[in-house]
């Protein structure tokens, strides 16, 4: 597969150099349809079931939440809810709904619909349910009147609001009409929409393309005047080289998965714009702090100081930024910490204090099979560790196998290459990754357990006053760095390429690596 990728890159470099036809945008039946090429198929469009970036792109286009993430840095903006209040004890959250909000079939969006939607997800116990199931019981969601809904939490939970952008409101009448054998309407909702979002589902051609028709009467309107914008087609183009070819040939208006090298090549063309912006996603080499080797903090520190951090940037052609804290830049309350950087003297000092003062051990590095950048990082690590007389065994695994190994403390490897995208900008979303409650999830393959850290995390998430929380999170960041459960890596840029006639693109670091918000996009030749 790696050979396939490099050959593809070579062939399409030739293509880009030699030029080729340039596509001109054309209207279909008097409307512009924007074609966005991506690799991930959409398995369903139900906001209550499991999610990935493709599902999320579709659900946030078909549905509305009470609030929505926008901008850089990301902020929670009122959406279906015009405003909200919180009780002094942080338990009761009351939201006022926009009275003009309508479902796409013409029904009004009511407080009952909001309560129904949240209860549906909590009862299904799938998808985004994990975000609130520990603090919210479906019985404690009340419609106070047609446009006011109240949530009473089991205990104070400061990050509550930061998760709500991923909880979408469905039309109870449409869902209930399609419930079969108590399935919560899941079968119907997989390929049909019952939302109030800016788009309606026009076609769902599995494995090929998914059509979203712009709802010109969307209750919230659009941030542009282009009435000839017909909609968005999310088209599957699985190979990055094919994405590039489609962009060059004008068969795609925007593509989501080009490599840094490919972006450089297409970006040189006059008719193509490239966007490269920092993401909330972090990349690190997680170390199993309960494993045979990495339970020794001196060894962890030695490895961290031996690594050549420039590699993180080089493998992405400069489209990445080193982490300057255990939290990434867009996380609320992030502070700059003095991070380990390559310093062989320090590395040897720490190694001398470890159980292996002269090295002579072999560490295991596990990464995703086929991800060339992760392989290159492994090679850099291998080089660095040789200076400490430490060998590195590089083990490529498929993602399911990595997930399996990361969920078991006895199988979790010494080092594992992991990308992590928090679903919220609240610092708790990152801090909780270092709490024992996250063990079993792929991003907690470090199995870190530190009493002081646990206390701080649990204390901070209960407070509602940011001024009280902020200093605790500053301490948490420092503590995590001190404990060195991973080689803190970098924030990869989110990179997209699109035709110059594509307008309105807005980035927000909160989005997953290849995720695009379709709402503000339009075509203006």
């Amino acid at each position: 597969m790696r050979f396939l990728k490099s050959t593809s890159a070579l062939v399409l470099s030739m293509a880009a150099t030699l030029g080729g036809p340039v596509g001109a945008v054309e209207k279909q039946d008097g409307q512009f349809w924007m074609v966005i090429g991506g690799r991930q198929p959409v398995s369903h469009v139900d906001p209550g079931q499991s999610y990935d970036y493709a599902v999320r792109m579709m659900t946030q286009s078909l549905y509305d939440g009470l609030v929505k993430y926008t901008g850089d840095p990301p902020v929670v903006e009122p959406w279906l809810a015009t405003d909200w209040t919180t009780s002094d004890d942080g338990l009761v959250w009351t939201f006022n709904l926009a009275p003009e909000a309508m479902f796409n079939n013409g029904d009004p969006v009511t407080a009952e619909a909001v309560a129904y939607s949240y209860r549906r997800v909590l009862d299904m116990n799938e998808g985004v349910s994990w975000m609130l199931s520990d603090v919210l019981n479906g019985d404690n969601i009340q419609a106070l009147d047609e446009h006011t809904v109240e949530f009473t939490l089991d205990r104070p939970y400061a990050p509550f609001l930061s998760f709500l952008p991923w909880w979408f409101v469905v039309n109870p009448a449409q869902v209930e009409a399609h419930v079969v054998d108590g399935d919560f309407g899941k079968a119907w909702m997989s390929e049909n929409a019952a939302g109030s979002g800016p788009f309606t589902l026009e076609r769902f051609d599995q494995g090929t393309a998914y059509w979203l028709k712009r709802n010109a009467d969307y209750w919230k309107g659009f941030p542009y005047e282009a009435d000839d914008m017909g909609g968005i087609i999310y088209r599957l183009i699985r190979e990055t080289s094919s994405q590039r070819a489609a962009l060059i040939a004008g068969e795609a208006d925007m593509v989501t998965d080009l490599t840094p090298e490919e972006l450089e090549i297409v970006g040189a063309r006059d008719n193509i714009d490239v966007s490269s912006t920092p993401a909330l996603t972090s990349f690190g080499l997680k170390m199993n702090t309960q494993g045979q080797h990495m339970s020794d903090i001196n060894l962890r520190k030695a490895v961290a100081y031996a690594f050549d951090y420039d590699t993180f940037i080089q493998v992405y052609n400069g489209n990445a930024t080193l982490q300057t804290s255990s939290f990434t830049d867009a996380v609320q309350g992030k502070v700059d910490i003095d991070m380990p950087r390559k310093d062989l003297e320090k590395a040897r000092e720490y190694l001398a204090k470890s159980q292996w003062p002269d090295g002579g051990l072999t560490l295991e590095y596990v990464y995703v099979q086929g991800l060339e950048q992760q392989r290159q990082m492994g090679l850099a690590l291998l080089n660095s560790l040789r200076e400490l007389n430490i060998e590195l065994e590089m083990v490529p695994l498929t993602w399911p196998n990595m997930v399996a190994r990361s969920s078991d403390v006895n199988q979790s490897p010494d080092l594992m290459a992991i990308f992590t995208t928090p679903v919220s900008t609240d610092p708790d979303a990152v801090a909780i990754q270092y709490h024992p409650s996250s063990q079993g999830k792929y991003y907690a393959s470090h199995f870190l357990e530190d009493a002081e850290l646990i206390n701080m995390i649990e204390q901070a998430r209960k407070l509602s006053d940011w001024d009280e929380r902020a200093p605790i999170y500053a301490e948490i960041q420092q503590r995590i760095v001190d404990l060195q459960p991973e080689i803190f890596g970098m924030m990869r840029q989110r990179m997209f390429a699109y035709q110059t006639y594509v307008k309105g693109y807005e980035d927000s670091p909160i989005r997953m690596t290849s995720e695009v918000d379709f709402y503000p996009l339009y075509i203006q030749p």
Partner: protein
Amino acid sequence: MKRLILKRLGLMLLMLLGLAVITFTVTNIAPGDPARLAAGPDASQEMVEQVRVARGFDRSLPVRFSLYLGQLARGDLGTSVYTGRPVAKDVAVFLPATVELVLFSIIIAVVLGVPLGVLAAVYQNRLPDHAIRFLSVSGVALPMFWLGLMLQWYLSLELGLFPLGGRLGIFDDVPPRITGMITFDAIFSGDHATAGTALKHMILPAVALSFPALAAIIRVNRAEMLEVLDRDYVVNARAQGIGPFRIIAIYALKNAILPTLAMIGLRFGWMLGGTVLVESVFDFPGIGLYAAKAAISSDFEPIMAVTLILGAAFMLINLLIDLTYALLDPRVRHQI
């Protein structure tokens, strides 16, 4: 003949059962927690356990296998753990696409391969033979995806003669579903414009996929023809003044074609299971991509379904080839 067919069909069922046992065991003893994958990366342990019980992953392998067989007997291919979609629904979309692609590829390989094999044999060690042998060696040596990329780059991107990929243009209407094979569905519906568009989309992936089969057919047919052209009855036919075309096309080719026929059958089976690279390059939504994604995700019910369907197809094709053998060769017919 009837007895042979029934016997072979009975054997097929036994072989499919064996295939099911092997695939089920291998898929289920491979590392990985399907419940965790199904619940999602952020799911709580409680959510993971809920999925485990709901999908029966908490039961022993023999129990799960017997349940799976019962499910198959009811015609239910199961549900993808990863996407939550019914496997039968996905297979119904992706399998016809691949069958259509393989059909066109095998047609290209046979229509070009048989005459070229004959030509190479007739002009042995002369220029046409050298040129054809160069082509057949290239067919074996050239990686399919590389050829696909080259065709895509030059004929699509540079010359704009063919679309880059897909089965139809993004704005083309899909004809009413009859077989799931778009070209045929369009023809059956009388929509010749769409049939033309579908064919245009089919040409490059079909050519790329057909190349290894074309090479194999040329080589086998050439070798067989060389052997047959030296036989006494051919010499005798020549002596009797029968025209060269008649000798080659009727007497020699009929006898040389049997091994080629076996090769065509084998290649058809291999192609069905080996389309993933071509599908990937040309974004052709077929069963190869579906199976590859399922394998990477350890998604066992799609893997089982694709393996059994392709296994059954392979066995059926071989049965058909054997029957065709019997029709063409009276010696084989009498042995049955």
